[in-house]
């Protein structure tokens, strides 16, 4: 078993590390001038993780995160929920309208920056700091709740169907994969009007889902973005629930993630799609003999036009990297199973899946921090000129992006720190869960040896993906 696991591990890791050579710089400016080679950071990060693992084994002998420890910090008026919902709807209308009616240049129109920078990258960071901030402003949820309230007042409508248990978080997993496909593979991804139409289509699907399965059930499991941001919010020390703001330990929400079907694929998709973003911009994908170019040629030879061939190649790459990430996680789970105590692999996979949440967030921060720090500033002038012509609503239309806000070295250090903290947090969550599942602290620690390999593998992969961005 152990030998098979070792061979499988080596194969998957070799595949993972043989694939990408560089990562997306995402607006990175300047050349890095680091005191040591970048690969040494991977070694240093690995040593930190091993020390963290030993520290957990010695200093953390009992589960501490498995019991809820929340304290009410603030009671919030109901009106605030209504107000934030209305603000969310207003922002939604402005973004959609700007995309449809504004200039069709991606950098001059408000919509692409709001969707790809503030929404996709900014909200995860806010969720870590302040909890599930998206939920009160979620426009389709606000529409669903408002409609539900109205229907109830009128005494019309039928009871929603019970949300099927087998469906779990599968709708969210597929929708996140679809969004990543649009972002990474679709050639028309930055076209403002196309984006607006896709936003409207997504909102319509959410409203249908809420009307069939009920507002709360659908928003908790089926609304991809609600689920995506909600997962990151579980790491936050703040928890907004039923008109209250509660405090809890950092990471305190993650152990209470209900591991329903689709949760493991969702988290593997989240990590895999970010990894592919880096992979797809490296020379092993884009180089003359790169995988992406070769795949594209294959489909050109089959008679597809260049655009479609490119999209098919990227689709294959995207799914391939998600499968590699899923296999790495599966290896950690199989390693845990080899410790004994008759835990099934599926059970272990689901019960430890919450340890992937901080890794997914670390990948987002490491990969997109420069995009957020540089392109995020564009909102200052785009808010004044949302349609891209004629207006200066807030008097900030002449603002520009300050590229001195952080230099290339600063970005690299943020990336390294994010990856180390994310993986150390993942180890902590997995260790705490193992303590509650295994008969002794020794068995719990032994069960996590292979999880440590997976965490170090993910860290090295992440740093490798990012390292070539400035090479």
């Amino acid at each position, binding site marked *: 078993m152990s030998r098979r696991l070792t061979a499988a591990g080596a194969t998957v890791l070799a595949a993972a590390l043989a694939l990408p050579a560089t990562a997306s710089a995402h607006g990175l400016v300047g050349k890095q001038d680091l005191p040591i080679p970048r690969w040494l950071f*991977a070694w240093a990060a690995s040593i930190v993780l091993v020390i963290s693992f030993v520290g957990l084994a010695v200093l953390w002998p009992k589960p501490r995160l498995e019991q809820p420890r929340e304290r009410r910090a603030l009671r919030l008026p109901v009106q605030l929920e209504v107000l934030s919902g209305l603000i969310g709807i207003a922002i939604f209308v402005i973004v959609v309208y700007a995309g449809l009616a504004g200039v069709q240049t991606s950098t001059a129109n408000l919509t692409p920056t709001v969707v790809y920078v503030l929404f996709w990258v900014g909200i995860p960071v806010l969720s870590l700091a302040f909890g599930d901030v998206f939920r009160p402003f979620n426009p389709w949820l606000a529409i669903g709740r408002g409609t539900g309230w109205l229907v109830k007042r009128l005494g019309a409508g039928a009871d929603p169907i019970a949300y099927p248990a087998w469906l779990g978080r599968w709708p969210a997993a597929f929708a996140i994969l679809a969004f990543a496909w649009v972002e990474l593979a679709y050639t028309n991804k930055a076209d403002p009007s196309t984006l607006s139409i896709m936003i409207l289509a997504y909102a319509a699907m959410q409203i249908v889902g809420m009307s069939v399965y009920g507002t709360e059930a659908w928003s908790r499991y089926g609304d991809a973005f609600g689920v995506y941001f909600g997962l990151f919010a579980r790491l936050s020390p703040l928890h907004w629930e039923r008109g209250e703001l509660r405090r809890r330990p950092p990471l305190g929400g993650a152990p209470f993630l209900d591991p329903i079907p689709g949760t493991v694929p969702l988290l593997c998709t989240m990590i895999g799609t970010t990894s592919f973003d880096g992979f797809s911009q490296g020379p092993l994908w884009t180089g003359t003999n790169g995988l992406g170019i070769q795949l594209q040629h294959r489909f050109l030879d089959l008679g597809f036009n260049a655009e479609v061939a490119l999209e098919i190649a990227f689709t294959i790459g995207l799914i391939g990297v998600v499968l590699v990430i899923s296999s790495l996680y599966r290896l950690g789970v199989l390693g845990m199973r080899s410790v004994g105590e008759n835990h099934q692999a599926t059970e272990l996979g689901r019960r430890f899946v919450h340890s992937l949440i901080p890794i997914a967030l670390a990948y987002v921060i490491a990969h997109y921090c420069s995009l957020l720090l540089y392109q995020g500033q564009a909102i200052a002038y785009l808010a004044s000129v949302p349609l891209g012509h004629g207006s200066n609503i807030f008097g900030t239309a002449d603002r520009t992006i300050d590229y001195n806000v952080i230099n290339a070295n600063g970005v690299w250090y943020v990336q390294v720190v994010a990856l180390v903290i994310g993986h150390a947090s993942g180890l902590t969550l997995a260790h705490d869960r193992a303590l509650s599942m295994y008969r002794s602290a020794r068995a719990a620690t032994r069960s996590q040896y292979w999880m440590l390999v997976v965490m*170090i593998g993910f860290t090295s992969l992440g740093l490798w993906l990012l390292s070539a961005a400035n090479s």
Partner: protein
Amino acid sequence: MNLPIAHFGHWYVTLLYMGPVVILVAALSIQSWRDKRRKNRDDSSH
């Protein structure tokens, strides 16, 4: 056709990133082998 070794300078850094994982996997494999050997020895002595 170029042998892969001809491009060693391009991809050897990749191996350096794999180093910590390889070391850890090797250490775990050796430990597992030792545990198994000890268990076999204990079983045969009883």
